[in-house]
């Protein structure tokens, strides 16, 4: 820690481990609850264990951590006051939006307070001329697109949870979504952030003028999984609705053929708005749900491909995509005839994760990204792993980006099955890493992927990440224990 003891804030502050031990003693939980209630009102604080259990999970099954308290500011000023109180009391905290994340990232261990941002959900302004919107962190993703729709605009990043997830959560996770293939992820759409640092200081990162100077602290903050502070206001770019949209559904009798079609389309230089793949088990889960989309139930894989842009030229691209699919062995390629059919095809894809709930009581999901030419190999390898471990893998993913989402349904009451699922998850992750991939493309590291971080980053690289965190949060009170394994941070010696 030679590096940090030189800076005043670290020199006087306790080391993290000591702090953790001491924090509990700094203030009694009941006393903290009443101080918080003085800011947000009685109904803005949850303290009973029974009521905190709703905040002990996010969208990822398999993890439960009960927070110390949960507090819900109603106004930006209340949020500022809450963060400053927590700073004075040296209390760790975890910001939470809608709790739809899939990395156990919004979970708070017992000494941390959940700061719920869902009530800060206003769309502050929309500037249609410059295609910008300013929103509070708890604004729901799809609500912004609906509001922007009045001007022929939308907010492009569209995670599958977009009907529920918040923009603040999207910023924390640098969320993607099917249409990020063409339009880019959250990072590419956030132009400015007004944030409160864990110390209670307020600062603005980036600006709405088109470009900013200095270090790209905005870029560093986006995707920092709540470890750098809390966004008070988010300024995002809005995207014009495309003039024309063509949605294709290609079905295949083997996963391999679908993967080959994907690689061929990307390699041919066609940039679809989205290129999604679902395998047979996923198709059948979706078709059994209320979001049945009319996917052929006997297919081994379907590709959902969307092309958009100006009407002219679109059909030529459609024909090329169709030809690539057929050449790779597609049985049929059908084009959605109208908006209703298009919506139905997309609903099936977007609700696929939830639909897995029908297959088994518990569910794990991964988020690895691999080079797109490796899709056929890696999907074959995943199938072999499933076979070896005797488990059922459902693949539903952003094929165009090479972003895999193998879902494994199981029953945690069965210890042997749980063990096999655990082994398979590690095997699959290793296969993706070996293919030159990364461990997470859009869900974030959170708690769930901590163990894999040392597999893709050297100790020095992990320590450098910790050093970046420390520039924002030297006390490491914001979402403690996430993203970078704690021991890595101790190894950073800098100079």
């Amino acid at each position: 820690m030679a590096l940090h003891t030189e800076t005043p804030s670290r020199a006087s502050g306790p080391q993290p481990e000591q702090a953790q031990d001491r924090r509990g003693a700094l203030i009694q939980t009941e006393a903290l609850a009443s101080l918080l209630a003085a800011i947000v009102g009685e109904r803005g604080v949850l303290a009973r264990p029974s009521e905190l259990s709703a905040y002990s999970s996010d969208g990822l099954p398999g993890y439960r951590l009960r927070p110390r308290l949960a507090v819900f500011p109603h106004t930006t000023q209340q949020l500022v006051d809450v963060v400053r109180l927590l700073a004075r009391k040296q209390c760790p905290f975890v910001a939470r939006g809608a709790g739809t994340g899939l990395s156990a990232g919004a979970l708070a261990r017992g000494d941390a307070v959940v700061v719920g941002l869902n009530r800060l959900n206003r769309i502050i302004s929309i500037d249609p001329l410059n295609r910008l919107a300013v929103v509070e962190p708890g604004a729901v993703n799809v609500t912004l697109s609906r509001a922007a729709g009045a001007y022929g605009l939308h907010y492009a990043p569209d995670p599958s949870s977009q009907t529920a997830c918040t923009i603040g959560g999207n910023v924390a996770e640098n969320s993607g979504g099917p249409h990020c293939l063409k339009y880019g992820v959250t990072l590419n759409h956030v132009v400015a952030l007004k944030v409160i640092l864990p110390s209670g200081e307020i600062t603005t990162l980036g600006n709405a003028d088109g470009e900013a100077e200095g270090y790209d602290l905005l870029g560093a903050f986006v995707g920092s999984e709540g470890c750098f502070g809390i966004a008070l206001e988010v300024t995002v770019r809005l995207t014009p609705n495309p003039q024309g949209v063509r949605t294709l559904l290609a079905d295949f009798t083997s996963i391999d053929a679908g993967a080959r079609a994907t690689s061929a389309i990307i390699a041919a230089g066609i940039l679809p708005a989205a290129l999604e793949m679902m395998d047979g088990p996923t198709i059948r889960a979706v078709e059994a749900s209320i979001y049945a989309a009319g996917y052929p139930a006997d297919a081994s894989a379907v590709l959902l491909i969307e092309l958009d842009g100006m009407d002219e030229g679109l059909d030529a691209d459609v024909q090329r995509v169709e030809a690539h699919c057929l050449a790779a062995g597609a049985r049929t390629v059908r084009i959605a005839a109208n908006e209703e059919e298009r919506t139905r095809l997309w609903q099936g894809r977007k609700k696929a994760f939830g639909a897995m709930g029908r297959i088994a009581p518990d569910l794990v999901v991964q988020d690895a990204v691999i080079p797109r030419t490796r899709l056929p190999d890696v999907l074959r390898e995943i199938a072999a792993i499933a076979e070896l471990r005797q488990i059922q893998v459902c693949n539903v993913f952003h094929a165009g980006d090479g972003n895999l989402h193998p879902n494994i349904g199981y029953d945690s009451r069965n210890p042997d099955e749980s063990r096999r699922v655990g082994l398979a998850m590690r095997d699959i992750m290793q296969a993706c890493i070996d293919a030159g991939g990364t461990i997470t493309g859009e869900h974030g590291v959170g708690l769930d992927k901590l163990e894999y971080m040392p597999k893709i980053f050297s100790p020095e690289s992990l320590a450098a990440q910790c050093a970046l965190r420390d520039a924002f949060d030297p006390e490491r009170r914001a979402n403690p224990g996430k993203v970078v394994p704690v021991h890595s941070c101790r190894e950073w010696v800098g100079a």
Partner: protein
Amino acid sequence: MSEPVAVPACAIPGTPLANATAGIMACVHCGFCLQACPTYLALGDENDSPRGRIFLMRSLAEGDLALDDPSVHTHIDRCLGCRACETACPSGVPYGALLEATRATLAQVVKPPLRARLILALFARRGLMRAVVAAARALRATGIPRLLARLPGDLGFAFAMLASSASPLSRARYRSRGTGARGSVSLLRGCVMEGLFAAANRATERTLVANDYTMVPAPNQHCCGALHAHAGDLEGARTLARRNIAAFEAAGAELVVTNAAGCGALLKEYGHLLADDDAWSARAAAFSARARDVSELLAAAGPRVGAPISYRVTYDAPCHLQHAQRVHAEPLVVLDAIPGLERVALVDSDQCCGSAGIYNLLEPALSAAVLAPKIAHIEVTGATLVVTGNPGCLMQIGAALCRAGVPARTVHPVELLDASYAAAARSGR
């Protein structure tokens, strides 16, 4: 720092909730239900969301929480039971059934509030109920409720509800004719519908006849039991269900029709309600298979187009039609058969109005919070008639419009179709 979730054996064996754990396990807590839930939107606490309530149910089942835990009761009581979450749920969690099972389980420990019990007792007693609604009708006829509708508080709202139950349309007088070829139908008259919305019941009969159904009376019918089931009084609901099954079997019609979405939802679930009753399960399932909302029958028939009547209207979907029965398009098909209507889309028309059976009487503040955006959206449409097919919604929305001074009234879609047919009869078409 995190433990895998292990599921212990059920801590409350033999309770209705214990039998529903499979439904609880279907929830993968993806959170897609949050924005569909009116109480979550109003309160901003996940404990008042479907996902949070399922956590509470799971905690009860696993023994982490006691059945008398006050926060469990608070959040379960606050649920409207609108079941919008079921429409949003990709995992197919049977939330409505889970809620009823939970309420029934909790009711074993803590009795529902006195106000609720009195209301349920009233609905279960046919004669008494008739007397009460007759009195209410008489009061309504005096015009006093409309004058007192602006009184502050619950009392004023109650008067407004009563006032708004009067039909906004002039009474239709025409003779309805049809071939009867579409089959025989018996109408579940419904306690509130027959008591306060008799005009809609008559309109239902006339429009069905005009669309070639044969009406068959079903005497000895009772309250459907929906309010009892929602409140956790499953036994009370089952008693009423058995009586109704017997009554409609005796009537002998091919189909059972209702124009009250809340009643219809339960009629279609009698099979589920009596599934464990060996003597009745088959009869109940057969009954449910024959139950229809009036809009389904009319839509199946075409329906016959009437004469133009000119109103600016907007449609609000009752939760128990939209989410519980999944009947979406049919009421709009009914409106399509009425020339001259100016139709305006209502933002969030699939969101609950906060009526939810007797919820508005038990949780008035939260009910009002859920209702407020609905009224704001209606005002934007500029409609003079808000069309919806459930008595609770008709009165809840009607009362709020009346108190807010919005120049719009509520009306059942079938009454509008009936008015169109009456106009056709007058013009000799």
